[in-house]
C-alpha cells in the first residue's frame, strides 16, 4: 500500500532530506540547554533518538530512491554568491549518499545506545560524572557534520562537513583532556589528529581551488559534466591533491599516524569515528569524484598503490601491537587501504561494499573491545574493593592484552560477538567480510595485479593478527587478577553488539555475486560501475590465505604460548614472535619508527624554524631591535633632538630674541621721550625744515 506507492515512484520523501541534519541539531541543542539538570538516561536517550530519527529519515530517503533511482537535489538555502561563485546549502539525495547516510546513522544510533552504558562506567572510572552530557553533545555534533559531508551537492559544503568531523574527532579524542601520559597525552593525541588532518585538508583546498579555477563551480553536477572538456593535467593535479586530503582523513600513507594515537579517546569514539564513519569519508570522496578519476588513469594508479601499500604496511604493524585497541586501529588503517585501493582501481562498487561491511564488523570489534576493557576494569575495581592488591604490583593497563586471557568463560557474549567480528574481518565464508573483500580481490586481479598481491598478503596478516588477538584475549589462562575477576556487561552494552554481529553475519547478502543488489543500487549514481564476475580461484586463494593466517596464529599463540608460559618470568618473552623474529618484531612493535622519523625529519626542523622565527626574528629582531631600538629609541632621540637644540635653542631663541629686540627698540625709542618741551619743539622744527626742503627742492 504505502510502500508500494513509494517504491513505484508515486510518493517520495526527498524533501525530508534536511532533517538528517535537523534532528541531530535538535538533540544537540536540547542537551546543551536542558541537559545540565537531567539524568544520564534522558541525555543519552535524547541523543540516541536524534540519531535514530536521522536514520529513519535516511531509510525513508532510501525507500523513495527505489521509486526514483536517479535521486534528487534538495536545496535548502543560499550561502555565498559572488560573481561567478554560487555555493548553496543543498542536499544531493542519490544512491551513493544515501548508502553513506544509512551506514553513519544506523551504526551511529547503535553506538549512541551503547555509549549510554559505556560512558556511565567511564565517567565514574575517570572521576568526572558531569562530563557525560558533553560526550553526547559532541557525538550529535559529529552526526551533523558527517551528514553535511555525505549529503552535500557541492565540494564546499562537503568541506564544511569534512572540517566538522575533523573538529569532532579532535574534541572526542581529547575528551579526557587532562588524562593520558603525563596528564597531557590525550590532548597531544587530539592535537596530532587535528594537525595531521589539516595537512590533508590543505590538499583538499588546493584541489577545490584548482577546480574552481578550471570549472568555475564547486557543484558536483556542473563539475562532472564539464570534466571531459578540461585539460588532463589540471584534472590530474586536482585528483592528486584530493588524494592528499584522502590520505589525511582516511589514514593512508603518509598521513595515517594520527589514527593509532586517536585510540586515546573513549572506545565508542574509536568505533564510530575512527572505524565506521569519519575515516570512510575519504573513500566516499573518491567514489563521488569518480568522473574526474576515470579521466586520469595515472592518478587512479597512484590511489590504488597508496591503498595497497597502506593495507600491507598497517597489517604488518598490527601483528606486533599489545594494546587491544591499537591492533584494531592498525587493522582499520589496513582495511581502509583495501577500500582506497578498490576505488583506486575503479572498483567503486566493491570499495563501497567493503565500506559498509567494514562499518559493521569494525564497529562490532571496537565496541566489543570496549566491553572487554570494561570487564577488565570491573575486575580491577572488584579487586580494589575486596582489599586485594592489583596482581603484578604496579599499574595494570586494562587495554593491554598481556594482562588478559581466559575471558572466554568469563565474558561469554562478548567472546561470541568478538569472534564473529574477527572472522568477518579475516574474510571467512560466509560472513560479510568474505564477500566484500573477495569482490575487491577479484577486481584487482584483472585490473591491477600488483595491488592484488599486496592485498592478498595483507589478508594473510589480517587473519594472523586477529587470530592472535582472539587467542591472547579470550583463550588460555588469565594473566592477571583483574582478568580473572572480569565479568560480563549489562544488556545496554551487549545488545548493540549482538545487533552488529547479526549484520556482520548477514551483511554479505547486500551484494551476493549473481544478485549484485548493492552494485545495481550504486550504478544509478556511479555510472561506470558494472557487476563483477565471481572468480572461484580468487575466492579459494583468499580463503586459503585467511585459514593459513588463522592456523599460523593458533600454532604460535596457543601451543607455543603454553610452552613458553612454562619458563620462569625472567626468561619469558612478552610475545612468542620475539624469539622467532627478534629485530623484525621490534621494528613492527615500534611501528617502523615512523613517528620518530617524522619527528626527526619534519617536526623538529619545523619547531626549530618556529622557535627561530618567534624568538630570533620576532622577538630579538622585530621587537627588541626594530621596534625598541630603532623606532622607539630613535624616535626618542629625534624628539630629543627636536626638543633640545631645535625647540629650545632655535625657536625659543628666536622668540626671545624678538622680544629682546622689541625691548631694546622700545628702550632706545624711550630716550626720545625726554619730557623736555624744548626737545619736542626742536623735533617739530626739524620736521618742518625737512618738509619745506623737500617741497622746495623737489
Amino acid at each position, binding site marked *: 500500500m504505502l510502500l508500494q506507492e513509494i517504491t513505484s515512484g508515486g510518493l517520495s520523501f526527498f524533501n525530508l532530506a534536511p532533517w538528517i541534519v535537523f534532528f541531530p541539531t535538535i538533540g544537540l541543542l536540547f542537551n546543551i540547554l536542558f541537559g545540565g539538570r537531567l539524568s544520564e538516561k534522558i541525555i543519552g536517550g535524547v541523543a540516541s533518538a536524534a540519531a535514530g530519527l536521522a536514520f529513519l529519515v535516511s531509510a525513508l530517503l532510501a525507500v523513495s530512491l527505489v521509486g526514483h533511482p536517479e535521486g534528487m537535489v534538495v536545496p535548502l538555502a543560499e550561502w555565498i554568491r559572488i560573481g561567478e561563485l554560487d555555493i548553496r546549502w543543498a542536499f544531493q539525495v542519490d544512491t551513493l549518499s544515501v548508502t553513506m547516510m544509512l551506514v553513519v546513522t544506523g551504526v551511529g544510533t547503535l553506538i549512541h545506545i551503547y555509549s549510554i552504558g559505556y560512558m556511565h562506567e567511564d565517567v565514574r572510572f575517570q572521576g568526572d560524572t558531569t562530563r557525560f552530557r558533553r560526550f553526547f553533545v559532541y557525538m550529535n555534533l559529529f552526526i551533523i557534520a558527517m551528514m553535511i559531508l555525505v549529503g552535500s551537492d557541492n565540494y564546499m559544503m562537503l568541506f564544511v562537513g569534512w572540517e566538522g568531523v575533523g573538529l569532532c574527532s579532535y574534541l572526542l579524542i581529547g575528551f579526557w583532556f587532562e588524562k593520558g601520559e603525563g596528564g597531557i597525552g590525550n590532548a597531544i593525541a587530539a592535537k596530532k589528529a587535528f594537525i595531521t588532518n589539516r595537512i590533508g585538508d590543505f590538499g583538499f583546498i588546493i584541489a577545490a581551488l584548482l577546480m574552481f579555477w578550471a570549472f568555475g563551480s564547486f557543484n558536483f553536477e556542473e563539475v562532472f559534466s564539464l570534466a571531459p572538456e578540461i585539460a588532463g593535467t589540471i584534472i590530474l593535479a586536482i585528483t592528486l591533491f584530493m588524494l592528499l586530503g584522502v590520505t589525511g582523513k582516511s589514514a593512508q600513507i603518509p598521513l595515517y599516524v594520527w589514527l593509532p594515537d586517536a585510540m586515546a579517546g573513549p572506545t565508542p569514539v574509536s568505533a564510530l569515528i575512527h572505524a565506521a564513519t569519519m575515516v570512510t569519508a575519504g573513500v566516499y570522496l573518491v567514489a563521488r569524484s569518480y568522473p574526474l578519476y576515470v579521466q586520469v588513469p595515472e592518478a587512479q594508479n597512484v590511489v590504488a598503490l597508496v591503498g595497497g601499500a597502506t593495507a600491507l604496511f598497517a597489517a604488518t604493524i598490527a601483528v606486533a601491537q599489545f594494546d587491544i585497541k591499537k591492533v584494531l586501529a592498525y587493522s582499520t588503517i589496513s582495511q581502509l587501504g583495501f577500500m582506497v585501493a578498490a576505488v583506486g582501481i575503479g572498483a567503486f562498487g566493491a570499495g563501497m561494499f567493503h565500506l559498509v561491511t567494514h562499518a559493521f564488523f569494525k564497529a562490532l570489534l571496537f565496541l566489543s573491545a570496549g566491553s572487554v576493557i570494561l570487564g577488565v576494569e570491573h575486575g580491577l575495581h572488584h579487586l580494589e574493593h575486596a582489599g586485594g592488591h592489583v596482581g603484578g604490583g604496579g599499574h595494570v593497563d586494562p587495554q593491554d592484552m598481556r594482562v588478559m586471557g581466559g575471558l572466554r568463560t568469563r565474558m561469554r557474549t562478548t567472546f561470541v560477538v568478538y569472534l564473529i567480528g574477527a572472522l568477518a574481518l579475516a574474510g571467512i565464508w560466509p560472513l560479510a567480510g568474505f564477500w566484500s573483500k573477495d569482490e575487491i580481490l577479484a577486481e584487482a586481479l584483472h585490473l591491477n595485479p600488483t595491488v592484488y598481491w599486496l592485498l592478498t598478503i595483507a589478508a594473510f596478516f589480517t587473519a594472523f593478527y586477529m587470530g592472535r588477538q582472539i587467542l591472547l584475549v579470550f583463550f588460555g589462562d588469565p594473566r592477571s587478577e583483574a582478568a580473572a575477576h572480569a565479568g560480563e556487561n549489562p544488556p545496554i552494552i551487549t545488545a548493540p553488539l549482538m545487533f552488529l554481529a547479526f549484520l556482520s553475519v548477514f551483511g554479505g547478502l547486500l551484494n551476493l555475486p549473481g544478485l549484485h543488489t548493492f552494485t545495481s543500487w550504486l550504478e544509478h549514481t556511479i555510472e561506470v560501475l558494472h557487476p563483477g564476475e565471481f572468480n572461484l580461484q580468487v575466492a579459494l586463494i583468499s580463503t586459503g590465505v585467511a585459514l593459513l593466517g588463522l592456523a599460523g596464529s593458533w600454532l604460535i599463540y596457543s601451543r607455543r604460548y603454553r610452552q613458553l608460559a612454562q619458563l620462569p618470568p625472567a626468561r619469558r618473552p612478552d610475545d612468542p614472535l620475539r624469539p622467532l623474529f627478534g629485530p623484525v618484531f621490534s621494528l613492527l612493535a615500534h611501528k617502523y619508527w615512523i613517528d620518530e622519523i617524522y619527528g626527526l625529519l619534519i617536526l623538529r626542523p619545523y619547531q626549530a624554524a618556529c622557535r627561530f622565527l618567534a624568538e630570533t626574528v620576532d622577538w630579538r629582531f622585530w621587537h627588541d631591535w626594530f621596534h625598541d631600538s630603532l623606532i622607539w629609541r630613535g624616535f626618542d632621540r629625534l624628539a630629543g633632538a627636536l626638543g633640545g637644540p631645535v625647540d629650545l635653542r632655535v625657536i625659543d631663541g628666536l622668540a626671545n630674541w624678538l622680544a629682546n629686540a622689541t625691548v631694546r627698540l622700545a628702550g632706545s625709542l*624711550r630716550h626720545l*621721550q*625726554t*619730557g*623736555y*618741551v*624744548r626737545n619736542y*619743539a*626742536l623735533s617739530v*622744527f626739524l620736521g618742518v625744515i625737512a618738509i619745506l626742503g623737500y617741497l622746495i627742492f623737489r
Partner: protein
Amino acid sequence: MPVTYYVILSAILFTLGAVGVLIRRNAIVIFMSVELMLNAANLAFVAFSQLYGTLNGQVFVFFVVTVAAAEVAVGLALIVAIFRTKHSINVDEISSLKN
C-alpha cells in the same frame, strides 16, 4: 624799498624767534619768541601785500593777530596753572611725561 629787504628782515626775525623757542628756558620768553615768529610772518604778509597791491596779505594779518591773541591767552592761562603746582616756569622742570 625792494621787498627783498622786508623778506630778509622777516626771515631774521623768524629765525631769532625759532632759536628763542628752542633755547630759552623761561616759558614766558618762549611765548614771546613765538609772538616774534608770528609777527615775522605778519611782516612778510604785509610786504607782499604792498608789492602786489592787493589787500589779501593785510587781511590775513588780522587772522594771524587774532590767532596769536587767542593762543597767548590760553598759553598764559596754562602757565599760571602750572606755576600753581610747580612754583616755577622753567620748562625743563615740566618733564613728568619723561619716559
